[in-house]
């Protein structure tokens, strides 16, 4: 709701997206990242301290966002949970992007048949929904935040591999690259010195855009019990934990749910802004 309101006040007919919104999005990302880093030091209470005598207290001066079913401070848990929630998404996306880039390089340098095999593998993996794939991996590795991250990397690398491969092919045909080849640079040298540095912009932008989605999926996995486990303050796990108190202690589930939404929104808007900067004439988004 707030974002819509912001848009309404700030929007005048203009060519490009509103810088105000961009600033807010980047600001929110910075705040979230700061929370992920400094959360444990900012928390007013010990987020893991069970105080059964203080269970289910509604929001007050002492407990800004109330306490959960075991008397733990919800506000402190949200602060601390930022680390597992956001870093897990970052890790999953950067892992997937890295693998994607390496695979794309191999496919680009390697022989035609290798390229075919790799692209087929991408198609096959993409035909398995992330959530389904991740639950399969969770059974194989046992449920934990680590297996959720592994599962997401396994499910997401093909998207990046395809993108990176497409960009590398474009760059390969650029005049300066062809010039370098003509001048006798080795194929590997051409790849690492010219192609790689010039074909990753799209991957960076895509990665930023995907972080929001990754946060959502990670939280969903924790919600169904295939992700973070107690006593973790991961936000999806917090929503699940509070679900049985929804009618009597709404604050336990509601606030972490809002944080997940805010994080996904902030990264989506920031990624969008990045994309608009790197391709100013793009009308996507």
């Amino acid at each position, binding site marked *: 709701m707030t974002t819509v309101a912001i848009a309404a006040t700030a929007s005048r007919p203009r060519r490009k997206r509103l810088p105000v919104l961009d600033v807010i999005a980047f600001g929110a990302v910075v705040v979230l990242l700061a929370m992920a880093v400094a959360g444990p030091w900012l928390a007013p209470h010990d987020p893991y301290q069970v105080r059964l005598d203080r269970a289910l207290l509604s929001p007050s001066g002492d407990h800004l966002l109330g306490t959960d079913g075991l008397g733990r401070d919800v506000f402190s848990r949200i602060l601390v949970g930022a680390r597992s929630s956001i870093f897990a998404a970052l890790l999953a996306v950067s892992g997937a992007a890295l693998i994607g880039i390496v695979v794309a390089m191999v496919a680009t340098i390697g022989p035609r048949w290798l390229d075919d095999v790799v692209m087929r593998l991408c198609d096959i993996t*993409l035909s398995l929904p992330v959530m389904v794939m991740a639950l399969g991996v969770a059974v194989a590795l046992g449920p934990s935040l680590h297996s959720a991250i592994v599962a997401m990397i396994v499910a997401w690398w093909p998207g990046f591999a395809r993108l990176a491969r497409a960009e590398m092919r474009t760059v390969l045909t650029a005049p300066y690259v062809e010039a370098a080849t003509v001048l006798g640079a080795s194929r590997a040298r051409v790849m690492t010195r010219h192609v790689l540095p010039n074909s990753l912009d799209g991957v960076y932008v895509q990665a930023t855009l995907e972080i929001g989605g990754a946060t959502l999926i990670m939280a969903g996995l924790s919600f169904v019990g295939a992700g973070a486990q107690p006593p973790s303050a991961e936000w999806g796990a917090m929503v699940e934990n509070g679900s049985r108190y929804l009618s009597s202690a709404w604050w336990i589930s509601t606030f972490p749910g809002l944080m997940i939404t805010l994080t996904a929104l902030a990264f989506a808007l920031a990624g969008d802004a990045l994309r608009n900067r790197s391709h100013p004439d793009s009308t996507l988004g």
Partner: protein
Amino acid sequence: MTPKDLALFVVRRLLLLATTLLGIVTIVFLMIKAIPGDEAQAAAGLTASPEQVEAVRRRLGLDDSVLQQYVGYLGRLLHGDLGNSIFTFRPVASDLSGLIPYTIELVVLAMLINVSVGVPAGMLAAARHRSRVDDSVRLLAIFCGALPTFWLAMIGQAVIGRQLGLTPISGVATIGLDVPRRTGFLTLDSLLAGNVVAFNDALAHLVLPAAVLSIPFMSFVIRVVRSSMITALEADHVTAARAKGASERTVLVRHGLRNAIAPVSTLLGLQIGWMMGGAVLVETVFNRPGFGSYLTQAVAHKDTFAVLGMVLVVGVIVTFVGLVVDLVQLVADPRVRLLEARRA
């Protein structure tokens, strides 16, 4: 397009399909092999006696070489044998075939909502490009994409289902409203039985879960419709058409929407698979039987063959949907696909 081109395209596409299916099967087979512990024990269930475990080991040929096992696995799959569930004590294949209709019903309705809201919204934004309306629709789209499905489902259930009493809270049908099972699709079966009350009831149970499931997906549809229509509307021939005095409505539908068909149908094809993933969360919250709730239960009980059977079936469904999408596009605009096919 010559008939030869068409035939070539179809053959090529079917070959791709076969390799994809084989690939999925291989991945699932490797996952079975990768899971720690005794496979025969897992297949027989942990309560099985040593003799039963040995019988399973022989039946599955687990003493053979991995290659022989792989061939045997393919053979069993061809007979529809996905192994047994240690949780329901039944063959996974028969469990799944009973559940498919519930999930398909949910996904189809979610898809209808998705398209009937997403496409007009995207068109509106494109028609009012660079206006306040455009900005709001775009932001709304991004916002929809940022909502956690499970959280939305919980809140929707508590507020719309209980506090406002507008929809049933959970389940697929009201107890006592039974219609003869023919297709397994509750809505279809109640229509076949001519039972309007049961049809309304089944639909009422579907609406909220389907709406919740569709919301994050709308975000993509709106954005793709919008961007592909804007690209089309800025093309030279459209400017020419406008100059010739074509009405704005004609331009929008003839040139804009038609251009959006290919990317949108590709997206919708992909979204069917993603929605089956999303159904995991929605079915759990709304206590609906189906793929999703079966999968979460199977995971909770470490029911290896049930989970892998699900992975396989979903992969196969998604692959076939991909084929259907390609064929639809071929019919809608043959040139595009044939060009792509040649280029590939």
